[in-house]
């Protein structure tokens, strides 16, 4: 460990603001790169599921009305 206290690590002899901001931005970038596509996949799957459910419901209603018509 190069730094004795937390304050020293944050300050880094005056360069802390530069170093830590770069690592902060990198964290954001890594999060976007890994989480972005995951969220997109989830959203696509949810949309597809909603579409399937509404289709299924329509089919059921159609078959019910058919059955009623026959009776």
């Amino acid at each position: 460990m190069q730094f004795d206290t937390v304050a020293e690590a944050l300050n880094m002899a005056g360069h802390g603001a530069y170093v830590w901001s770069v690592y902060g931005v990198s964290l954001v970038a890594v999060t976007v790169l890994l989480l972005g596509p995951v969220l997109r996949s989830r959203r696509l799957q949810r949309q597809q599921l909603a579409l399937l459910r509404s289709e299924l419901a329509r089919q059921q209603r159609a078959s019910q009305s058919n059955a009623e018509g026959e009776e």
Partner: protein
Amino acid sequence: MWTWFHKFGSPPWLYSIAGSILRWLVPITVILLAVGAVWGLLYAPPDFRQGNSYRIMFVHVPASVVALAGYYVMATAGAVSLIWRMKMADIALRSCAPIGAMLTFLGLLSGAVWGKPTWGTWWVWDARVTSMLVLFFLYVGIIALYEAFDNEELAGKACAVLSLVGTVNIPIIYKSVDWWYSLHQPASIKFTEDSTMDGSMLRPLLLMIVAFYCLFASSLLLYMRSEILRRESSTNWVRKLVLAKAGQGSANAV
């Protein structure tokens, strides 16, 4: 060999194999990144000339290296898509572009922030910074060209052609920018190239480069999976997949 090759063109197979790779690749990426960042930030010794600001290097260099390598991955996908008309190669090409653009942007931004304490200015028209800027525009051009086409198949082809033109040009661009910089190098700013980096700094740097390659691979596979889902959304296997997942969810709810 050929059966493997044909499988590669099949979306469900690629989707599931990418899933099983990601199950261990993503944790490894996160661990490597975390270890590398902590090592670079807290344990690597300060540089005797630049002090602590050089710690930005542990992000700047890997991001720039992988951004450039990413262009070649993209161009390879482009070549495969043009030669074998493989749909999955188009998807890989389209997925590489935003990742590469993001990494190039990160490289540029970290370079600018590194420049402020080192050279006293945010932006230096240094050879590597300038080349990175050109690379950024190459990536943005690919994304813009893809989005301009209505037909996705043609968009993929057009981007494949453009990325191949880029592969021929990138070495020329880099060499000429290098030459241009050596011609105009201002006397006030001297870059002393430390070709011999101490092992205590080199080891975390190499670790971070490996970590960024893993990051690129994980992000590429994740993007490809979401892109596959989008394009194949009306096919049977996606429906089954969605229903299976929903079945699990409702079973848990009950």
